[in-house]
């Protein structure tokens, strides 16, 4: 142990000579020239040193910058020479020559000091390194350099980038370099014509990097002038008191420019007056009379004359001053020609993004429409075909959703539980529907208003029952993993898989409905009973049975819709209420008695709601309000819905 220690000490002593390095290599001399700035390591003063290194053209400059950035450059405190070093252990360094990177040997770290550039300096070094990296043989390094430029571009990068494009072999990188070169030209190009040409070269593009480049060019500032300004830089004239330039803001510009006396807020004026009350009066005016803003203005003016407070402009003076000035918005981000070109380009981009957003809105509307359709399709059977108003329809949806929740408690796998829940929800609500039809509705077939009331009673009871069983808090119905996430078309247009699934489900039910009604014995009998129950009866059809089955079928579909809706909305005892009015609207708007009417109605209601929401995205309540108002008006013009039944069927 002792011998090993002695040996290592000896070894260190033998290697001691950091002096062996070449002190007169050009890179070392360059560093020595800038040694003061480098050692001071301050962001403010380091710039020239880094620039000198980058511009030196020395082959070692890149590795010096690189090592410096990664804190591997040390300085010999006695000789002042710079070396590269790696820490071998706590006390020992392995040092390298900075000129050629050759190993010098291991030394004790006493007498060496590590250069520790802070993050700001490291970023500056990184920017300087970019030009080396852009030519690096390793494509990864070149890609990193491009990313660095994109993040934090500087004027100097433009020339560096241009110089490397010709030599770029990788086609992907070359395309990126060219794009970046054009973006940098927009920002830093020397002549306006060059910049405008670069802007125009992007026509048809709507990338976010382009938008980020163009937006700063459009910066404007609002200025005031006594005469009408001229020139291309003037974007537009503004009137004080308009939305773009409130009166207060306009006057503040004048005050800031020293062109007008400051104003005073009501509160400040009040405080100033209070501070100067003497013997129940302010500047000789009795306090008791100061009960209007005019009186207070006069008192303040009197105070200002005595010199106690700053004189301020009264409202009348403000108006008069504002009248004397012309306010205008001026481009300050770029010369006018460039700004105008950027404006044109941005307008074109806005338009394209707008188109994309419309497409996204359309997808949203379709998915909302399919939810409404799913909620309304059961109603299209019970109300549309049988003409039974079932106010408890929403509660059947709720029942289906809770069935899904219960099944999910019993079966841990989400995929299996959903697949099991769908038929069970159908069975549960089918049974509930049949029971309701047998017990209540069949007694009321010819009293529609009373059906409405009776089913409302059931609806209230079912809601409270669900509340008693499941509590008031929302229960989760979790979608399986493969329904998570979204289908993304581009950065504007995307739709979640659950919504796609709901759309598919809605289409399946449309198909199922059409199949059952048009292609099966049951459908034939249902249509027969709806058209003329007595005639159907005399043909050997049992109308009671058919009514029962039809109602059960409609209710069962509501149950399945409940599972689907529960996947994307909360499952609560009140969830049915959220859909019942919209569902009725869907059926009524579309036209009673026609499944395609319900489809159209759902599309109309869904796209309308999304469309109104688009105008006022923060407020979905307002969207619903206006949608309902629109529907009320719509029914004025097409009282029987979009697809109206004709002939004798209307009369029933």
């Amino acid at each position, binding site marked *: 142990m002792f011998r090993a220690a002695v040996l290592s000490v000896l070894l260190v002593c033998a290697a001691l000579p950091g002096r062996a390095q070449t002190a007169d290599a050009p890179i070392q001399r360059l560093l020595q020239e800038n040694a003061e700035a480098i050692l001071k390591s301050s962001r403010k003063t380091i710039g020239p040193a880094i620039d000198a290194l980058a511009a030196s053209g020395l082959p070692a400059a890149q590795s010096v910058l690189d090592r410096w950035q990664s804190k591997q450059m040390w300085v010999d405190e006695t000789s002042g020479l710079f070396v590269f070093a790696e820490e071998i252990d706590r006390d020992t360094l392995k040092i390298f020559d900075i000129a050629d990177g050759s190993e010098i040997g291991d030394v004790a770290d006493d007498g060496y000091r590590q250069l520790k550039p802070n993050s700001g300096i490291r970023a500056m070094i990184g920017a300087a390194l970019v030009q080396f990296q852009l030519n690096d043989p390793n494509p990864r390094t070149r890609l990193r350099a491009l990313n660095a430029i994109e993040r934090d571009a500087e004027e100097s990068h433009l020339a560096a980038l241009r110089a490397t494009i010709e030599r770029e072999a990788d086609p992907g990188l070359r395309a990126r370099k060219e794009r970046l070169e054009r973006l940098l030209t927009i920002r830093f190009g020397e002549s306006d014509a060059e910049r405008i040409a670069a802007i125009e070269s992007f026509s048809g593009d709507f990338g976010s990097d382009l938008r980020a480049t163009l937006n700063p060019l459009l910066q404007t500032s609002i200025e005031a002038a006594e005469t009408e300004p001229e020139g291309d830089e003037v974007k537009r004239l503004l009137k004080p008191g308009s939305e773009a330039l409130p009166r207060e803001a306009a006057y503040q510009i004048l005050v800031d420019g020293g062109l007008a006396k400051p104003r005073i807020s009501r509160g400040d004026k009040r405080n100033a007056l209070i501070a100067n009350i003497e013997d129940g009066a302010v500047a000789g005016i009795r306090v008791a009379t100061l009960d209007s803003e005019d009186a207070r203005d006069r008192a303040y003016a009197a105070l200002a004359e005595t010199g106690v407070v700053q004189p301020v402009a009264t409202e009348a003076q403000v108006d008069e001053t504002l009248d004397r000035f012309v306010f205008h918005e001026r481009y300050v981000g770029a010369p006018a020609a460039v700004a105008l070109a950027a404006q044109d380009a941005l307008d074109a981009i806005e338009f394209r993004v707008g188109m994309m957003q419309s497409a996204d809105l359309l997808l949203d509307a379709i998915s909302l429409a399919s939810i409404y359709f799913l909620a309304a399709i059961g109603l299209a059977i019970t109300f549309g075909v049988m003409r039974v108003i079932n106010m408890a329809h929403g509660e059947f949806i709720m029942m289906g959703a809770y069935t899904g929740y219960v099944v999910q408690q019993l079966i841990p796998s989400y995929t299996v539980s959903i697949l099991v829940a769908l038929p069970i929800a159908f069975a549960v609500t089918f049974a509930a529907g049949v029971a309701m039809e047998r017990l209540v509705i069949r007694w009321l077939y010819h009293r529609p208003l009373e059906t409405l009331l009776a089913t409302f009673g059931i609806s209230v009871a079912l809601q409270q029952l669900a509340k008693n069983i499941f509590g008031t808090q929302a229960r989760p119905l979790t979608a399986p993993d493969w329904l998570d996430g979204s289908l993304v078309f581009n950065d504007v247009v995307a739709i979640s898989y659950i919504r796609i699934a709901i759309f598919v489900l809605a289409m399946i039910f449309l198909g199922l409905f059409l199949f059952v009604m048009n292609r099966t014995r049951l459908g034939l009998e249902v249509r027969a009973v709806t058209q003329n129950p007595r005639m159907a009866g005399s043909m050997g059809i049992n109308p009671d049975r058919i009514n029962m089955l039809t109602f059960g079928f409609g209710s069962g579909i509501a149950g399945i819709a409940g599972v689907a809706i529960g996947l994307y909305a909360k499952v609560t005892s009140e969830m049915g209420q959220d859909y019942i009015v919209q569902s009725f609207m869907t059926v009524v708007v579309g036209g009673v008695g026609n499944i395609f009417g319900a489809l159209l109605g759902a599309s109309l209601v869904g796209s309308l709601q999304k469309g109104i929401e688009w105008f006022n995205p923060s407020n979905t309540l307002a969207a619903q309000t206006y949608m*309902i108002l629109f529907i009320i008006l719509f029914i004025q013009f097409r009282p029987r819905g979009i697809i109206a039944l004709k002939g004798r069927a209307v009369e029933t």
Partner: protein
Amino acid sequence: MADTAFAAPPRRPLVLRQPSILVFLACLALFTLAVTLLADGSGTGAISTSFVKTLGKTLCLCLVALAMDLVWGYCGILSLGHMAFFGIGGYAVGMWLMYARTRLIVVESLANAPLPPTPEEISDGIATQIFGVVGASEFPPVWIFAHSLTLQLLAVVLVPGLLALVFGWLAFRSRVTGVYLSILTQAMTLALSLYLFQNDSGLRGNNGLSGLQNLPGLGEVPQSAISLWFFWASAFALGLGYVLCAWVVSGKFGSVIRGIRDDEARVRFLGYSVEAFKLFVFTLTAIIAGIAGALYYPQAGIINPAEIAPIASIYLAVWVAIGGRGRLYGAVIGAALVSLLSTWFTGGQAPDLVLGPVRIQWVDWWTILLGLSFVGVTLFAPKGIGGLVDLVTERRSPSRHGADLGPDHGSLREREAQE
């Protein structure tokens, strides 16, 4: 009463045509007298102030139920929007109450300020007090008349009246009838309540208006006295409303609207302007509902958009149906009975029902019972509680069309019987 004024020589006086008026007014007077004598404010204190308020509110509900009976039981329009008119009346009067009271508070707090307050300061102070909860400090345009009691009282009548007039004109003109009209009125109610739920609706969003039980300038008067005043006002309004409704349904006009209920097409072919009759009844009942609301909410103390939600209007239909529609006293009985029972059951005063191991808490189960009993009434007793009166008085409806299928006499029943 009003009988002499309306009785033309060949016609019998109103009280004879509608004998229930006298009975009803007598009962109402007795009830009012009894409550007054027993109330905290004036007599023995056997009835607490809060219960006087509950009774006063119940009278207002009876009034709106009368309106509902007129429009549904007599004219056949199942409106699911009358509680919205009720709420609008409450909002109209609540705006003045809140404005005036906040103004008093603001003026009082500014009175001690070093400078006498300016009108702008007072107005700003009131606005900040009222709209601070929704993050605003300026008066929205709907509050433009809030300073004036007269104008706001006018709004109690005009706003529901105009809304009903416009909505009814649109709906009746395009021949929206039956369940479609019900759904449409429900949609209108939903739209209104959703609108009021927004914070920028100008009516304090879902906070609603509060502190309405304090009458401005009457801070000295105890609530026990104020509650009695409102009780009397409600009783008076109910009495007046009953006579008005009875008068409307008693004469030829009443026959026409009952005819519209039973077979609209037939009445139209007889040359009557069905739409005008319906519009009149719809608007009149909306105004009555608005007045009832204006009396109700100062007693309740708070109004918020949830009170306007469609469910409230459906409950109104439930009261009238349970009490017995097509007879005015039925509506009053239904509203009073069901709303008082609801208060009792949901207030937690009702003792739990113990059935072996099961313990039924009425707070949880009352709504279920109400819903099911409603189904039962619809199925088995379409005449409602009022039908019991028929048993007592042995009064039978003239049976012109075979078997009795409920109070909707006439062709509807005829059609039913055929089918």
